[in-house]
């Protein structure tokens, strides 16, 4: 019984990791940039969600605005910070990204205060019992919405012109361009979608904890990096599997390894173990 409960909790946490890491893997697949500042957009989403929800009392509107603002924030970050650095070695963009992340954390603190913010009337608090396991409605909806979003994205990517253009750009940018695909547009769309997912995840975390803080992105910032490396850099199915697997492993690790290994170190112990056996990650792209 405890094992099932731990798996369920692991999947809830894994869903959040998946939403954050997906955006990161999209960016890496396209531009080969390790986009640490992605976690700042996750925090931004949390703040926008709480602010909009508190002002309007409408949670779906909060989610929508959070995804929209974070998505646009991602495009702005790309245009201002990464685009001018695309011809530089990859570590230049990485350094810019880390700087951007630290600056954003402090900006959140200055603008919204150090104390963090909570929902005036927390939603989705209702409790459900499924097969003897007790869940908060929010916990169930995190998993369901993640699954739905990923399904929709997979459909868009394989069945629509824009999705196919994105895939073509990832595998061969020059060839894609010569077929008339606008690189700029594809990059903007990628940043928008990836960042919107992070913003969406930010609202979920805000709901689950009833708290958004300036530093709420600090753990996802490096854990999402571990996840995309685990999943084989740039692979979407790999990232998903790695995120869910890590969630479950962490759930068990917190209880049974808690005395030896910090919860946040488990991701890296797992990463090292996997890379020793499969240096290309769990699902490397061919």
């Amino acid at each position, binding site marked *: *019984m*405890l094992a099932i*409960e*731990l798996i369920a*909790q*692991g999947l*809830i*946490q894994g869903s*959040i990791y998946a939403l954050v890491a997906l955006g990161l893997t999209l960016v890496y697949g396209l531009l080969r940039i390790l986009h640490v500042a992605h976690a700042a957009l996750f925090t931004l989403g949390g703040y926008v969600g709480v602010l909009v929800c508190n002002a309007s009392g409408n949670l779906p509107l909060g989610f929508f605005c959070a995804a929209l603002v974070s998505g646009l924030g991602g495009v702005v970050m790309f245009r201002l910070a990464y685009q001018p650095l695309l011809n530089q070695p990859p570590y230049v963009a990485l350094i810019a990204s880390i700087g951007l992340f630290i600056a954003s954390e*402090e900006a959140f*603190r200055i603008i919204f*205060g*150090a*104390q*963090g913010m*909570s929902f005036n009337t*927390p939603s989705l*608090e209702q*409790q459900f019992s499924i097969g003897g396991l*007790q869940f*908060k409605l929010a*916990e169930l909806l995190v998993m369901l919405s993640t699954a739905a979003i990923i399904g929709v994205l997979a459909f868009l990517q394989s069945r629509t012109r824009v999705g196919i253009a994105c895939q073509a750009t990832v595998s061969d940018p020059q060839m894609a361009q010569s077929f008339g695909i606008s690189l700029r547009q594809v990059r903007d769309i990628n940043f928008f979608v990836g960042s919107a997912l992070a913003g969406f995840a930010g609202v979920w*975390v805000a709901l*689950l*904890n*009833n*708290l958004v*803080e*300036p*530093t*709420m992105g*600090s*753990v996802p910032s490096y854990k999402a990096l571990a996840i995309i490396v685990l999943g084989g850099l740039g692979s979407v199915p790999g990232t998903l599997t790695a995120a869910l697997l890590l969630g479950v492993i*962490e*759930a*068990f690790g*917190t*209880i049974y390894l*808690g*005395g030896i290994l*910090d*919860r*946040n170190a488990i991701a890296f112990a797992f990463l090292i173990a996997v890379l020793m056996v499969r240096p290309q990650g769990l699902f490397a792209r061919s």
Partner: protein
Amino acid sequence: MKSRRPHFSLLTVAAATVAFSACPAWAQLKLGFNVPLTGFAAADGKSSLEGAKLAVEQANAKGGVAGQKIELVVYDDQATPKEAVPSATKMVEKDQVVAAVSGSYSGSTRAAAVIFQRAQVPYVVAYAIHPDITLAGDYMFRVSAMGEVQGRGGAKLVQNLGKKKVVLVTLKNDFGQALAAGFKEAAPKLGINIINEYEYGMPDRQFGPLVSKIKSDNPDVIYASGYFFTAGPLVSQLRAAGVTAPIIGQEGYDSDKFIEIAGPASEGTYVTTSLDRDSDAPATKAFLADYRKATGSGADMVAAASFTATSVAIEGLKKSGGKGGAALRDAIAAGSYDMPIGKLEFNDLHEVKKDIQVQIVKDKAFRRHSIISDQVLLAPPTKAK
């Protein structure tokens, strides 16, 4: 238009010159203050700074010390030793403070303590609870109960509530570990059975797996250390999973923000702390009212402890006639203080012996539950041990 600019800047320079030249006329006594204004502990830092500022304002309004105004020299230490060391060095070397106050956590305060001790600058610590701080030397003072003492108080509360089976949830830092050590020391003597202990890290906010395990442990009571930003999510997640055992927290929970984050789940949570909001003591009532007037929000333990530590340093300065060093050290050590967090006297290790206030969350506010005043159990360490 052009010709007006030079006039304007000349006027500014002139005004600035007058302002600066006027400064030396008011001699100022500098009181150092290290506090986390950025980083993870910034929320506590803000409360702490407000408490210290209030103490200085009140003292200055009453004429300062020996005809001199007190100036609070504030350094942001981010609650980390690497920032606390240069801050303490600057206070000693550059600002030449007569005394200093810590409005920060144990990690940074321990690092700064050594520097102030070496420079023989009295250092009054508000709410950092690590035992090593007062062991740094005789220029160190602490106005709140040490972590171990608070942990023992927590065990006593479990006994008072008539509970036996406890699960410990411990925050992995100086604060959490000192509390757990005190609790574990007292538990066997009080007939308390610790059935499990779990640890968590400062960045953790999602406790799903931990909550599932605690639920299967089925304890009578949960003793969980943490700060409001970890405790809020923890308490709310425990209640959402259907865990109904009482939860005991400590000073770190002591903020209205805890109640805001945990919402209705916070009701009934016990907190062992040093601020009694329902106190009849004039010093406490006056502080609570003055703090609300000055900041527009309710005081928490951190604000009350920082106000107290700053006031103790100022009282000492009044007695030493504004002199620092050994004169100030002896003046502070000999004093007896009527403060918002109780009546304080220092022992030979410069620790205070005081009761522990148990507050309970009731109707969205901290209210008095009981007071633990076991002289033997709550005795702070002395030089002898």
